[in-house]
């Protein structure tokens, strides 16, 4: 069952066509929504939350229509906006308990869930201090906590790594992966950086100028470009003999220093390389799967 489905979705703002004929189906899991700034990512999220109506087409979230059943959708999803959205003079605990209640949780449950969720996003003693004194990384965690506190079925995370340093970025990405795998909550995460989403998403939707460029599994993006790096502890002649043998078997081979780069045709490629190395009596140091980055797929 798809958690998000759109049919011919369009959104016309005065003077700007923000979304154009967008038809996508998204399965449960971690889904990356990639596009440059102004590609229509935030507009899509706002339509999915039922905050703005589409001008054309229709959309459903968790099987609910975004125009007619938006209140029900908003009970079951969480949303982390891109920009700063936290009041500075309340503590994280106080704020998260409050938004949990606005999501419909009874007082006791709101307090328990707030404590749990803040712990899961990695906020401990500091959660009792006013948010105004937090670092960017801590604020992002509070923003994430408010999206998760009511245990949604699906969360929309709009540019969650924005403004974070590399370490904070890695931690946020690890957290997003945990939300999808351990928490069992589906995630739609946006970014203008492909490489980032490649690390956490199972499925990628790429939009540009409001139009769908591609929507497919991350493995499909990288499989086609899979390269096997083989390193040998032999002189160049040994390397060339192996290269020749593999080329005869129909593989595309390029020399690379003391080793070879071999385009992976399918699963049998590994066996073929192993058998040839053994036949020729060469000293194999290592075989390494070098997945091309998605960026390369798109730049090529």
């Amino acid at each position, binding site marked *: 069952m798809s958690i998000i489905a759109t049919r011919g979705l369009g959104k016309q703002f005065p003077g700007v066509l923000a979304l154009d004929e967008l038809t996508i189906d998204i399965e449960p899991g971690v889904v990356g929504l990639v596009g440059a700034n102004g590609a229509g990512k935030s507009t899509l999220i706002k339509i999915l939350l039922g*905050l703005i109506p589409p001008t054309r087409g229709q959309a459903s979230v968790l099987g609910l229509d975004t125009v007619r059943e938006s209140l029900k959708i908003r*009970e079951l999803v969480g949303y982390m906006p891109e920009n*700063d959205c936290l009041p500075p003079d*309340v503590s994280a605990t106080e704020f998260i308990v*409050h938004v949990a209640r606005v999501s419909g949780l009874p007082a006791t449950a709101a307090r328990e869930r707030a404590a749990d969720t803040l712990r899961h996003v990695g906020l401990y003693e500091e959660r009792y201090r006013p948010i105004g004194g937090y670092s960017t990384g801590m604020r992002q965690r509070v923003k994430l906590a408010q999206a998760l506190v009511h245990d949604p079925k699906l969360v929309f995370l709009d540019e969650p790594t924005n403004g974070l340093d590399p370490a904070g970025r890695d931690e946020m990405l690890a957290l997003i992966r945990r939300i999808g795998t351990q928490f069992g909550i589906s995630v739609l995460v946006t970014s203008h950086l492909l490489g980032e989403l490649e690390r956490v998403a199972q499925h990628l939707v790429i939009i540009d100028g409001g139009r769908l460029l591609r929507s497919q599994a991350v493995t499909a993006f990288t499989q086609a470009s899979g390269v096997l790096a083989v390193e040998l502890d032999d002189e160049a002649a040994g390397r060339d003999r192996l290269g020749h043998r593999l080329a005869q078997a129909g593989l595309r081979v390029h020399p690379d220093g003391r080793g070879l780069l071999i385009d992976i045709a399918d699963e049998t490629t590994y066996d073929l390389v192993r058998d040839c190395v053994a036949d020729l009596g060469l000293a194999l140091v290592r075989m390494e799967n070098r997945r091309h980055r998605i960026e390369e797929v798109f730049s090529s």
Partner: protein
Amino acid sequence: MTSVIHDIGYRHYDGPRLGRAYAVRSLFTHNLRAAYGLGRPAKAKIMPFLLFTIMLLPAAISVAITALASSLGNGQPVNLIRYSAYAVYLQPLIAIFLAAQAPVLASRDLRFHVTPLYFSRPLSRLDYVLAKYGALTTALFILLGTPVTILFIGALATKQKHLGTHTLDWAGAVVGCLMFALVLAAIGLVVAAFTPRRGFGVTAVMAVYLISTAAVGSIQGIAETQTKFGVARWAGMFTPFNLVDDVQVWALGAKSSSPEPPPSGLGGPVFALVCVAVVVGGLAILYQRFRRAGAQ
């Protein structure tokens, strides 16, 4: 057993989700508390509680004095301050409370862009505006109604004469307090919602109160000297306390406490309609304001 924190992993929530009415109630309670600085740092509590305490002082003094001088008032019920006049006499304090606290409710969410977090939850934008308006109205009603009720309890406790009249006057004044609260909250929230920058909201609300009061006062003074009493009375419409007081006079039979009573004839109904227009118009403006903020 030692106390060890066990990480039991993520737990799903399968309890009740109480829906829209509960969400609105939660937002109302949160904002009502915020109007008195509750749930916020100690600094935020000083102003509202100080003003609340000062509001009570005249009532407390009145009760004390009438208790001592219980021989007073053979002919009619006695309080140093009439129930229906309390809000009018103490209007500067009420205006300061409104100026200080309306921005807390109306501009903080805009200034810190918190509105998307509310609008992505199960409530509509109108619900959000009504919860804020209800909260500030209630906060003002508490501020105005408490001292009036203390006067009444004082009268009961000191066994004043004419307790029946006391009861009627008090009940009328409580309704009047609600009208003051409804009109003042609408004005305060609208002004504060368009001045989200820190401190501006306070100044803007105070300015609206002071300028309208001063302007209307001058017009009324000039009209009086030219014996244009009709003009003087109609001018009362343009300052909130005179406006609502005149509705009290017309609808609840209160004695006028403002510079001018309502114009005779159509004056009362027109002033009442103006109050309704301020509330409905204020809510419509707030709805538009927050609708735009939510779509950003």
